[in-house]
């Protein structure tokens, strides 16, 4: 007689705002088997390329996911620009970098909050989200939208940030950084947090690489892969070094994200300081004809937009591979052997973005 408990986990679940479902098989509270299942957010938006003009599709692209919205749009636009051989003005590249990094800040803070909630640390959740609001305020002031910015377009960006606003942002960065470091300190040093995270959901360097993991999940295991190193947007000018941790556990993944907060703040600061003058967009003429695998670094890892045009206004195919999809195999490997209490923590530790995953 087996002493096993079969528990459905999700799709409706209080701590994960998005539906994912796992069939957990527990012994006492030890996870012995787990079968994931997704598909609750699959909308089929890849097919919309056949209905929307390639310039309009940016709006769809940024709604692939409301958290990494800007970077999806960026990745899509870069892909089209590559196919059409459009050179984006410098200022637009810098602005894109700033918004990308703001996205990363907002996403990481959001994730830190959810992660804290996953551990049952409510106050930390509140604090993370409180900090995140200041990033959203910047978004609202510079783009007009809080979570969906709608500011990237093929050939550049739709809005400029005035010098005044840039200066203000630069001024407030220091105090923002200090608050972030306070917050990060709790995640990295608090004993109860460490107790919950260290040694949990370990995935070795080789495994992470072999399973095709992406982003902080990969970097937390000691593999330095960060697409910003390829120098898209303004990263090439600003210089960038990936954040890497080696332990491969939930704590390492958390540490990667915390330290990425600091590096993002640094990038924004330098981007504001080195902001070039000039126009923010170029006129787009013609239609895309060709194919390209456009890649960019999302908060969750490497995103791939495969775009293929045939010279008409409509693309033939857009295929979007998002980091969470790549991290699911790693997740399946991480869960067995954990405690039930750790399941939400481990699931969150890959920073799942289901609406990205399923498009």
């Amino acid at each position, binding site marked *: *007689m*087996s*002493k*096993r*408990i*079969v*528990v*459905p*986990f*999700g*799709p*409706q*679940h209080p701590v994960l705002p998005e*539906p994912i*479902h*796992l*069939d957990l098989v527990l012994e*006492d*509270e030890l996870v012995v088997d787990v*079968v*994931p*299942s997704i598909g609750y957010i699959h909308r089929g938006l890849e097919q919309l390329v056949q209905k929307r003009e390639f310039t309009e599709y940016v709006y769809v692209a940024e709604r692939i996911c409301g958290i990494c919205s800007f970077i999806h749009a960026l990745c899509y636009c870069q892909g089209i620009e590559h196919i059409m051989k459009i050179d984006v003005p410098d200022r637009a590249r810098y602005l894109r970098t700033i918004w990308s990094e703001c996205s990363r800040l907002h996403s990481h803070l959001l994730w830190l909050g959810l992660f804290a909630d996953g551990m049952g640390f409510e106050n930390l959740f509140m604090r993370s989200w409180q900090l995140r609001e200041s990033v959203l305020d910047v978004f609202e002031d510079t783009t007009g939208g809080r979570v969906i910015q709608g500011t990237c377009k093929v050939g550049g960006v739709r809005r400029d940030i005035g010098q005044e606003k840039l200066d203000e942002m630069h001024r407030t960065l220091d105090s923002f950084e200090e608050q972030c470091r306070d917050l990060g300190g709790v995640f990295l040093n608090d004993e109860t947090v460490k107790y919950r995270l260290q040694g949990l959901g370990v995935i070795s360097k080789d495994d992470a690489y072999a399973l095709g993991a992406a982003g902080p999940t990969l970097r937390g295991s000691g593999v330095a892969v960060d697409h910003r190193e390829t120098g898209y947007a303004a990263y090439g000018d600003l210089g960038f070094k990936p954040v890497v941790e080696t332990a491969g556990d939930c704590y390492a993944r958390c540490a990667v994200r915390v330290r990425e907060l600091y590096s993002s703040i640094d990038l924004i600061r330098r981007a504001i300081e080195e902001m070039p003058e000039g126009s923010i967009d170029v006129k787009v003429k013609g239609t895309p004809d060709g194919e390209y695998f456009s890649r960019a670094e999302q908060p969750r890892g490497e995103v791939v937009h495969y775009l293929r045009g045939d010279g008409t206004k409509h693309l033939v195919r857009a295929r979007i591979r998002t980091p969470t999809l790549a991290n699911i195999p790693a997740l399946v490997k991480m869960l067995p052997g954990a405690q039930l209490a750790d399941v939400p923590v481990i699931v969150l530790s890959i920073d799942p973005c289901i609406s990205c995953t399923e498009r």
Partner: protein
Amino acid sequence: MQTLLFLILFPILVACLLLFVKRTTLRYAVVALSALAIGGASAYLLIRYASGGAVYFAASSEAADLAMVAIEMALALFIIYMGAKFRNYLAIALAVVQAALIVYLETSFTGSLHAANNLFIDQFSIIMALIIGIIGSLIAVYAVRYMETYHHHHPEVRDRQTMFFFVIFAFLAAMFGLVFSNNLMWVFFFWEVTTIASFLLIGYSETEEATTNAFRALVMNLLGGVAFVTALIFLAATGPASGGIDLARVLASGDAAVVLIPAVLIGFAGITKAALMPFSSWLLGAMVAPTPVSALLHSSTMVKAGVYILVRFAPVFAGTFAGFSVGLVGAVTFVVASAIAISRSDAKSVLAYSTIANLGLIAACAGVGTYMLVWAAILLIVFHAVAKSLLFLGTGAIEHRIGSRNIEEMEGLIVRMPKMAVMMFIGIAGMFLAPFGMLVSKWAAIEAFVQAPFGLVFIAILAYGSAVTVFFWAKWMGKLVTVTRNAERVEKGFLEEPWAPLYITTGLVVAAVFLFPVISSTLIEPYVLAIYGVTAHLAQTNVAIMLLMMALLLVLPVSFFLLGRTAKHLPVYMGGRPATPDLHFAGSLGMTREATTQNYYLTEYFGEARLFRPGAAVCIVLILASWILAGVAL
């Protein structure tokens, strides 16, 4: 005295009669009638002797003594024969040693082998007699139908029911003899009979496992037997100073140091018989026997003999370090066995560990031996016997209906066998919940230990132990009351056990709560008073509160009928997934899965593998310590 003799001899008569009864219905009639007679006689004892103090009877002994020695020798030969047959040389060796010691005793100390009074009765004996007479014979009645079904389910087992019932009644006779004897030689004789009887009953099914376990029980009990004989030799040798083999004199002996050594040795015999650690394995092994045997061993006979003798010697243990040591064996057994019970899913195994734990608690009380603790110990014996017999009988009945005695399989019993579930519920409540008996006794023990010297050690152990107890009982209870859907009602099996014994024991569990103030004041308190000169009792207010709680428990179910009517029924929440009422939900990979809910067993922390060895090691050290301390005291 006639009643005493009747109670000892009548069961033997019935036993012999049953050797010739082959038909179940006839056997049922015989067993039921004799049960009635035995129960009636025990009740008569209560009426006749409860009000007075201890009464001694100088039963003539010459012939009886001789017969006893002869039977003892015969039993030794039987053990040697069985040992040779199954190649268990340890048993042979122990039997030989024991026989040699008896012969030595009989030949060397002929002068001091006479007790002034061979039989006696006091309130403690009455309590034991009631337990044996009522619960023991109820189990016997239950066993008749049970065994019929048992053979129906297990065609591979040879039908030896005549032998079975012979042994059962012989067992009862021996138990009566044991609690009525004032002559320690007699006590030892009956002691040996229970050993052999349990050996035969455990080995009933004749499977390899049964035989092995039977021999394990035999060997461990023989160890105790050897210690017992040694104590007798010591007593006989120390003659008048210790009081010889006269129980009453021994207990009243002024030379506490001299008596302590035999007390510790007999206490060791009690520890083996009561299956305290490290000897707990025989009682667990005894689970292979048919369930009525387990019920008998656990509730009214055998192990109770062990704690009976310990409680008898409690005044000797009181205030000595040796006694403290013996008490600690019990306390450690209590906490370790309770903890191991968490990791078990086999109902009988849980019951066994719980028995071991409770016997440990009784032993702890007896070892420390203050008047309050003796009071608590006797209360524990009573309540444990009642509740545990119900649980065993219930488990047996359930096993026959659902084909398993695994707690997990009892899920939803409230739907499948409502009457049975309620009875089990009451039985389990009786084991650990206020205001039921065991809890009251535990509470009394805590209050008593606080006042005992170095009682803090026991309190600490008790605090952990009772916390652990709540866990495993409550989760079993939870399994019973789970309301499962689409479960079939199997209350009426193809061969019905008589429900009467179950109803009666259930009634006893509930009645014990209402009656325990009376039990305490008429039986336990006078006994304690007689021995210690002071006695303990529960405060009136607390008794009143507990009766109020019990009344509430009886009234609350009424709300069941008042509340439920207007409610809308919905299936359980399954994370939003479509689910059927019987807990099937749409799982991953397109499969429909069933959400199963199993209990927690925390094997990693409370497993037998992890806890048994350390526990046993501590207990062995403590037992050795008790010997050394007793020796030092001399």
